[in-house]
C-alpha cells in the first residue's frame, strides 16, 4: 500500500516538474472540439445534437495518444527491473500508474467539460449526462489503454499499432457512452447504458491490471 502511494507521489511530482507536458491531452481535447465546431458551421442548432458524439470522440482520441508513454520511461531507464526485484509486485505498480494517468488526463477533461458545453450551447442535463458517462467509463478507458501500452512498451514507434489494438475494445464504451449521455436527460443514472459502462469498467479493472502486469513481466525477460 505504501509502495503504491509512493509511485503515485513520484509520478505526480515528475509531472509537476515536466513543464506542463501532461496538459497536452487537454489542449488536444479543446482544439479538436473547437475545430469540429468551426468545421460543422458553428450553428448551435446543428451542433447541439452532435455534441455528445464529438466530445466522446475527442476524449478517446486524446487518450489514445497518451498510452504509448505510460510505461515507456520506466522501462527505458530500467526502473521497472528494480521495481520487479524489490518485490513490490507489478500489479501494484500498474494500478498506481493508472491512478496517476486518470488524475493527469481524465480529471482535467472532466473539469473542462463545462467549457466544452459552452462551445455547443449544451444544457445542464446534457452536460451532466456527459460528465457521468465519462466518469463511469474512464476506468475502462484507462485500463484497456494501459494494457496496450504495456504490450507495446518495448516497440519504438508502436503508436499506430497501439491505436489499432485499443480501438476495438474502446468501441463498446463509445457506443454506450454517447447514448448514455443523451438518455441521461430522461432517465438520469437509471439508464441501462450507465450499468453497461459500470460493468465494462469493473471487467477492465479486473482483467486489464493483472494483464498489463503480466505483459510488463514478459517484456522484462
Amino acid at each position: 500500500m505504501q509502495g503504491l502511494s509512493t509511485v503515485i507521489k513520484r509520478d505526480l511530482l515528475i509531472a509537476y516538474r515536466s513543464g506542463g507536458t501532461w496538459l497536452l491531452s487537454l489542449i488536444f481535447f479543446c482544439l479538436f472540439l473547437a475545430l469540429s465546431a468551426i468545421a460543422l458551421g458553428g450553428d448551435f442548432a446543428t451542433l447541439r445534437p452532435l455534441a455528445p458524439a464529438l466530445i466522446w470522440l475527442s476524449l478517446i482520441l486524446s487518450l489514445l495518444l497518451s498510452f504509448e508513454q505510460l510505461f515507456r520511461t520506466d522501462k527505458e531507464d530500467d526502473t521497472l527491473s528494480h521495481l520487479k526485484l524489490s518485490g513490490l509486485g507489478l500489479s501494484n505498480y500498474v494500478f498506481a500508474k493508472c491512478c496517476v494517468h486518470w488524475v493527469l488526463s481524465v480529471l482535467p477533461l472532466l473539469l473542462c467539460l463545462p467549457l466544452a458545453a459552452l462551445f455547443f450551447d449544451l444544457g445542464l442535463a446534457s452536460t451532466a449526462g456527459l460528465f457521468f458517462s465519462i466518469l463511469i467509463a474512464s476506468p475502462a478507458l484507462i485500463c484497456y489503454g494501459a494494457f496496450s501500452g504495456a504490450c507495446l512498451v518495448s516497440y519504438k514507434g508502436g503508436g499506430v499499432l497501439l491505436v489499432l489494438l485499443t480501438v476495438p475494445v474502446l468501441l463498446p464504451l463509445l457506443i454506450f457512452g454517447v447514448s448514455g449521455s443523451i438518455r441521461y436527460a430522461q432517465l438520469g443514472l437509471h439508464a441501462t447504458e450507465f450499468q453497461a459502462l459500470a460493468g465494462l469498467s469493473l471487467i477492465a479493472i479486473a482483467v486489464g491490471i493483472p494483464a498489463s502486469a503480466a505483459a510488463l513481466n514478459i517484456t522484462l525477460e
Partner: protein
Amino acid sequence: MDDQQQNNTGLEIVNLGLQRGDTAILSGFNLSVTPGDMVWIKGSNGIGKTSFLKCCAGLLRAQEGNILWNGDNILKSSLGHAAYLGHLDAHKPDLTALENLQFWQTIYDSTKDINSCLKQVGLWKQKDQKAKTLSAGQSRRLSLARLLLSNAPLWILDEPAAVMDEKGKNLIQGLLNNHINANGCVLLASHGAPVRVGNHTRLLSFDAGDTHARA
C-alpha cells in the same frame, strides 16, 4: 528460528542452461554462493556475463535448470532477494538525488538512514541536485546509495566501476567489504583485476565452451 538457519543456504544454481539467441552461454552449470561469499566474474565482451547476472537476479528466464535462493525458486515473484546494479542507473532526471532515494526507501520498505547512505557514497553535498545534473560517476554513486538502502542480501553488480574514478573504485571496494562482512553475497562482473574480499572469493571465468569457477 531453526528452520531459518537451515534454509540460509544462499544462492544455489542447479544444472543451469542459458542461451541467448542460438548461442549457448552455459549448460549444465552448477554453483553455490553462501552468505559471506563473493564471486568475481570475468570474460570477454559479449560472452554472456550480463545475461548470467540477470538470470541470477530473476530478471531473465533460463532455458534449463533452477536457481534457488534459500531453497525457493527465484522466479517466484516478490522474493526481494537481490539488488541489481546494471548498466543503467534508473534515476528519474527531474527528481533530486534525495527524492530518488526516498522513493526507493519506501519501495524497499527500508529502515536504513538515507542521509548516512548519501554520506557513505560521497553525495551529501549534491543531495538537492536534480539527478539529470549529476555526472556519470556521481549518478553511479547514487545507484550505490540505492544498493545500500535495499535490504537485499544478494548484490548483483554489473561493471559497477565502469565510469568511476580511482576514489570511486576504492569506495566500491569498501562497500563490498562491508557487505561481505555482514554475511551478504556478491556476484560481480568486472574487467578490473580481481581483488580478494572476505574469506571466500572465487573467480568465475567465462570462456567460449568452458566456464569454470576456482577459488
